[in-house]
């Protein structure tokens, strides 16, 4: 049937397109932003996204994995866009950047709570800009000494490094994901620091001087899971997510995503919460006509 499905790949990006005579769909993965974590591939309802590990060359640092999208499976729903904490994926329909699932409230958006109280910023301070491991912060000081701090929010995974580094407590960050990252030091092979090599957040993992092994500083961890993918030893690295901050949504697709990202219990917890809400709403509706 007439419909073009194209795929083009380069080191900097991966583009797939589906072109109908009168409509076009595109999906772009910006490889300079993508860290190769597992989130999108976990939630893709078509199982169209695969993670390809980069083979490690001896004597070199481990490379982050690459994601690959099956152009024949993708139907451009935008779930991957919605879940990517790094903002590496974009879906474009007829030239418009859009995530249909978010638009139709079938899937939530991640909530990035970043607040900067610029009034407290000391002059000439660029601590946050320097500290951001992803280069997302730009501090500018106008000639009238008015300071602005620009954060590329849509690409920010909310690691909180800037918050800690800020000398005046100007920045407040709430994490998107909470959870637990545990390195089982008994299984962790010594001399290996693959996870550290690929972790996009400087400081979230570190090499302990004491035992020469990698340890986790959970304050900065975004729980994206790229470390788990490259870890060569099964069971050496335990990652579990417990909550995800997201806009409210009632959707089976999200429940399933939540289950995959966190756990069944977390999912049912959220469902129960929603159930309460629903009951309350029902009660409210019942009461309304009486009010009138």
């Amino acid at each position, binding site marked *: *049937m*007439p*419909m073009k499905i194209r795929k083009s790949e380069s080191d900097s990006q991966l583009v797939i397109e*589906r*072109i*109908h*005579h*009168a*409509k076009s769909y595109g999906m772009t993965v910006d490889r300079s932003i993508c860290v190769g974590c597992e989130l999108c591939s976990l939630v893709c*309802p*078509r199982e169209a996204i695969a993670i390809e590990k980069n083979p490690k060359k001896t004597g070199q640092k481990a490379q982050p994995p690459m994601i690959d999208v099956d152009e024949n499976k993708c*139907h*451009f*729903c*935008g*779930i991957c866009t919605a879940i990517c904490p790094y903002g590496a994926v974009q879906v474009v329909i007829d030239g418009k950047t859009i995530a*249909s*699932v978010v*638009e*139709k*409230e*079938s*899937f939530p958006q991640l909530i990035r709570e970043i607040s900067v109280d610029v009034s407290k910023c000391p002059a000439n301070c660029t601590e946050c800009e320097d500290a951001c491991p992803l280069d997302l912060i730009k501090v500018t000081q106008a000639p009238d000494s008015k300071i602005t701090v620009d954060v590329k929010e849509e690409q920010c995974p909310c690691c909180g490094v800037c918050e800690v580094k800020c000398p005046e407590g100007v920045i407040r960050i709430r994490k998107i994901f909470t959870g637990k990252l545990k390195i089982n030091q008994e299984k962790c092979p010594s001399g290996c620091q693959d996870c550290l090599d690929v972790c996009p957040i400087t400081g979230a993992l570190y090499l302990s001087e004491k035992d020469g092994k990698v340890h986790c500083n959970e304050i900065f961890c975004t729980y994206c899971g790229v470390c788990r993918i490259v870890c060569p030893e099964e069971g050496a690295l335990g990652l579990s997510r417990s909550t995800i901050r997201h806009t409210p949504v*009632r*959707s*089976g*697709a*999200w429940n*399933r995503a939540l289950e995959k990202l966190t756990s069944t219990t977390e999912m049912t917890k959220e469902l129960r919460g929603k159930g309460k809400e629903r009951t309350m709403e029902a009660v409210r509706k019942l009461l309304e006509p009486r009010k009138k």
Partner: protein
Amino acid sequence: MTEEKPRIGVFVCHCGLNIAGVIDVKDLTDYARSLPDVFFAKDNRYTCADPGQDEIRKAIKENKLNRVVVAACSPRMHEPTFRKTCAEADLNPFFFEMANIREFSSWCHPSTPEEATEKAKEIVRMAVAKARLLQPLKEIEVPVTNKALVIGGGIAGINSALDLAEMGFKVYLLEKTESIGGHMAQLDKTFPTLDCSICIEGPKMVDVGRHSNIEIISYADLISVSGYVGNFKVKIKKKPRYIIADNCTGCGECRDVCPIEYPNEWDVNMGVRKAISVPFEQAVPLVYSINLDHCIECYKCVDSCGARQAINFDQEPEEIELDVGAIIVATGFDIYMPYDDPLYGYGKYDNVITALEFERLILAAGPTGGKVIRASDGKKPHSVAFIQCVGSRNLKKYEYCSGFCCMYALKNAILLKEKYKEDVEVYVLYMDMRTPFKGYEEFYRRARDLGVTFIRGRASHIIEDSQTKNLNIRAEDMTLGQPIELPAEMVVLCTAAVPKTDAGDLARILSISRDANGFFMESHPKLKPIDTPVDGIFVAGACQAPKDIPYSVSQGSGAAARAATILSKDKWKIEPIVAEVTPELCRNTRVKCGICADRCPYGSIEAIENQPAKVVTAMCHGCGTCVAECPADAIIQKHFTDEQIFAQIEEALKKNPEGKILGLLCNWCCYAGADLAGTSRFEYPPLIRPIRVMCSGRVDRDFVLEAFRRGAGMVMIGACHLPYDCHYISGNLRMKARMDALAPMLEKLGLSPHRFRVEYVSAAEGLKYAELMKEMAEKLDELGPEKIKAENAKLKPILDRMLAKKRPQKAQSSK
């Protein structure tokens, strides 16, 4: 069986001078009277006229005749007449036999009256020999279920269903996709009147949906069909829509909240549809369905459906069983998508599209809202070229003409011209412009009048300008005799109409046959264009061959009328010339045989292990193929038994056998061709002694052996042309396989190769038959009786041995 001694009456017809002008009728009548068991013989001026028939009736009563032979014209002409005459005189109509002395003798041997008379005598003698062995038969009656199944909800099927429903019959309309409508619902306007397609089809679809006698079974597949005319059992599998049809109001609120869009195949993938949707707005039934391949199960639709509760994600496929008396097949056609033809660049060049895509483009309700735009830049093309015969009339693809492409190309050209006027240049590259039927040629003129440019010449290939995406069509303008390079901003390929991809599966399920192109075969190309070889199953519309809308509509109604001839009766009569297994002789009780069941073209024989095979009489068409194939001679074909045919062979070859050709001719083609040679008065040497069989598939190798054993000069089997002309689907193929094995064996035994022939002569080939007779006579002459006798003498002991088991049986019955 009542073994009454035969009392045969022979009636010789003068047929005015048609017979009497050549044949000495008096002599013939006297001869007939002298034959054993003949108690009465008389000649009439016109036996078929009332006085002639009266004489037969009278003679039966007065002389207590229990067999009647009429020596007159072809049984294909008057056998039914005289059977009725016998029945009126309380004689079982199957005690009647006809000797064809007009078409087979007087008409084809006028210049040798003596030999013609001699041949007529032998033909009568053969008929008397068969008559002696005739058995009474009773017509078989089966009950009829007064319901019909129409397969396919396109415009042909819709019309069949509506007509039958209006006649008062219950109709199940089975549709594979989610909605009825078929290809017609995809089109923009219709030629030659330019009515909007869905505007005229839509109301009919609604009528179907509302009719109390019609049950639409959509989104469902046919699984199996068993039974026979009047009594079909049909299994259907309904695919899950994940929507409870009764609860769905068709409001579309679920679609509005659905976040997922996938390519809409109904829109030729030019547009998209939601994961919960209908393929098009006017769908009937207006029931939504969920495509689970694409659904992400967010359940937004469940929320929006709310209290209607029409959505059920747990729906399973459902199998249903129906009883129907007749089936109409109206499954339509597919459009050839020329991806495999690199020369036109379809699928490679953005602005080369098929005509069906063009329909969706120019349609106001289509994905572009009726704007004709190019895929490459979304702009309106200033020149559009239509290329005809893409895939059609091409031996490398589809040999046939797809019929309606010329007209739809004209229609689309006119639509373009009327829409964009001078702003668009329209070309049509064609080989022959085919515009028969009402209003079509006028439509062609209208296109020329509007300024459409017609170029006679086949577009051979297309080249794309990689920058502008414009196209350059190469062809020869044949009227100028020059190669041309025609620039166009868009090219529309008018591609072939091809059989449905699953037509083969359907043919297997229904036991109907397909032609060389893959379309369903009609029973007779002229006189039974709607029937299939299977009684009770009819075809309508483009599943039989490409057809336009008016033709499909008429065929739909025609098929309804044909089906009604069955449905309107409580009982259906079946000719009793069927096969019957003698259970004691069947080897299937001892070994795993089942050859008959395998060879039966209608699947009418059951051969369950360790049980004798059984013929389902109502399904048997009486070709006799199983009888010839049975290795144990356990099956008999009524009215064409081995004994009867052996007796005919014996009589045919009593005198001067080496100078004769024994013919075994199939009723529908070769026998009819021989008749035509007679009616056309083609003269040929009177050497053949023809024996009629219903199908060449009936011709047992023993018949051939017996003929040579009795010293025949030549044996000829006359059959329908290979591979598809056989009236019983594959009888001729079976015969061929059988004879292909026999011929080399006979040759090895010393038979000159020309003496045993299998010839294919159609009912139209009277001339061919006559030429064949001449050629065979020459060969016979060339060989000379001495050589033949010598060969036969050598063969005889071997053939005696081979036929040993047949002879005692024959000896018994010929007593």
